[in-house]
């Protein structure tokens, strides 16, 4: 199904050095509309670095990013957001001291103008937050609750709500289920399937084979910063993928 769908995001020959360390070397990646790509690899294989390059947080030392067929140079996460590419970080990237709503709209807060001055529109933030949480069936006491008062699962839900609040075309999730209770894992995976059905391309980085084999259509493995193996999900098996992670074909 994937090859017939529109290509959303393509990374070609991505290389990234940190000083003398080579984190990524000549890595390629593709994601299509409505497709979920699983990215697996051992610790230090370069998964998180690759995702940070895709989101514009790191600049690649070499290589190019194409979004809907056009090459883009991302100077900051703002650029990738403007293209419709959203990231859910492993460390959740939420400011605990701010309420849920302000976290969801952080950096993109709606404002109202009084003369030439722009003020935050708290009422609109709250309305939009409630509507969005409702849509995703995420239950919290109120949009005004501070994030530091939430449980791990609730925080993950807020992080995902944040990534999908602005009509994202591609959502990248770094270990979306790592810190969650079993019941909450199912909810997150449901959410991913829901995003796929609306045509969103999803990239999931995960150690959990259960996650990969529940939601992904294709899986690729990184090993020591390079493309190691890639396959449609129905043409591979858990054991094979686990082998890739350890560097065995």
């Amino acid at each position, binding site marked *: 199904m994937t090859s017939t769908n529109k290509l959303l995001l393509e990374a070609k020959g991505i290389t990234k050095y940190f000083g003398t360390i080579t984190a990524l070397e000549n890595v390629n990646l593709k994601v299509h509309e409505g497709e979920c790509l699983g990215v697996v690899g051992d610790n230090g294989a370069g998964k998180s670095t690759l995702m940070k390059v895709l989101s514009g947080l790191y600049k690649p030392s070499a290589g190019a990013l194409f979004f809907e067929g056009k090459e883009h140079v991302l100077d900051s996460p703002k650029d990738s957001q403007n293209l419709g590419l959203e990231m859910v970080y492993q*460390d959740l990237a939420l400011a605990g001291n701010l309420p849920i709503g302000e976290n969801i709209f952080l950096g993109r*807060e709606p404002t109202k103008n009084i003369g030439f001055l722009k003020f935050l529109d708290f009422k609109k933030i709250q309305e939009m937050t409630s509507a969005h949480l409702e849509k995703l069936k995420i239950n919290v006491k109120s949009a005004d609750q501070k994030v530091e008062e939430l449980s791990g699962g609730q925080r993950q839900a807020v992080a995902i709500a944040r990534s999908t609040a602005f009509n994202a075309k591609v959502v990248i999730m770094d270990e979306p289920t790592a810190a969650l209770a079993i019941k909450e894992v199912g909810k997150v995976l449901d959410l991913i399937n829901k995003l796929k059905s609306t045509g969103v391309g999803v990239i999931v980085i995960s150690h959990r084979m259960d996650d990969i084999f529940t939601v992904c259509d294709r899986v690729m493995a990184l090993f020591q910063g390079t493309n190691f193996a890639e396959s449609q999900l129905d043409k591979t098996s858990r054991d094979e993928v686990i082998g890739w992670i350890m560097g065995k074909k």
Partner: protein
Amino acid sequence: MKSLVGLWEKNKMDDKEKKQDSLYVKLIPYFEKYGILLLLVIMILVMHILQPDVFLSWRNVTNVFKQISWQSMLALGVFMVIVTAGIDLSVGSIMMLSLMILAIVAKAGAPWFIVVLVPLFAGFLCGLINGLGITLLRMPHPFIMTLGTLYIFRGTGNLISGGTPISGFTDEVRYLGHGRIDLTWLGLEKSQYLPVSLVLIAFVYFVFWVFLNHSRTGKWIYAIGGNPSAARASGINVNKILIIVYSLCGFLSGIGALILAGRTDSGYPNAGLQSELDAIAACIIGGASFFGGRGTVLGVFAGVMIMGILRNGLNLMDVSSFWQQVLIGSIIVLAVYVDVLRRDFGTRK
């Protein structure tokens, strides 16, 4: 039947307990927000009881406000920096340098509106230097950059003035620090005036309250303090915001210089010596957290007031300034301990 009634009673009791519990929980945020004001009110009451004739007299109250006027500007600047989880040790030196530049420009015979604008501009530039140093030179911590500029700015101030005081400014220049708003039209006596510096404090604090709580930039300042990588990942230009924050801090120190020029009618080498520590203390007492992201403008104001009232009250009671040091230090430690308890209580780990 009897046991059923007992059960019913017990349920009612449980409900009651729950209600009390939730009321208590509901009160916590208010206590967090306004607890420091409560402390301020208690202090005022205690001082009033100890010095019933003097403390709340018009003369003494205006005196307190005049004394805290320039410190309150430094504290507000340092507060914004602390919200970003940074620190600015150079505010005292920025104020001294701005004051010296003001004095030199005034002595050179520049018109008053230039003399008034010069320290604001100088303070802003000093803050900009701090901000650029912290972000562009990638200093490991703002402590280091601003410790450096603490020496650099004061040294520069002494170099340009020759290390000697320069005195005598015109009334226009002194207006903000020394001006009086006559209230005789309200039927008050001539001695019952309103210091211009009090109005200035209220105005500046209000403007910065609006800025920090109702503007995007203000919200981002809090976000950076809460989680800088979250702010960066949200597309916020963290370095730009930090430069703005340090520049504004310098600008406020410049306002402090202008007020001090009015109060003392002189630019002098020891101006603002160690006042950065007073400013930090006021922020900490007022509930700002060194870890960033926490604290309110109202809290800082309360912190400044608490320190001012403590000094003033102890002076009135003729307590040695050595005891004042001990007391202020103790209040800092106590205030931070309360902050520690509050964090334990309010945050899920």
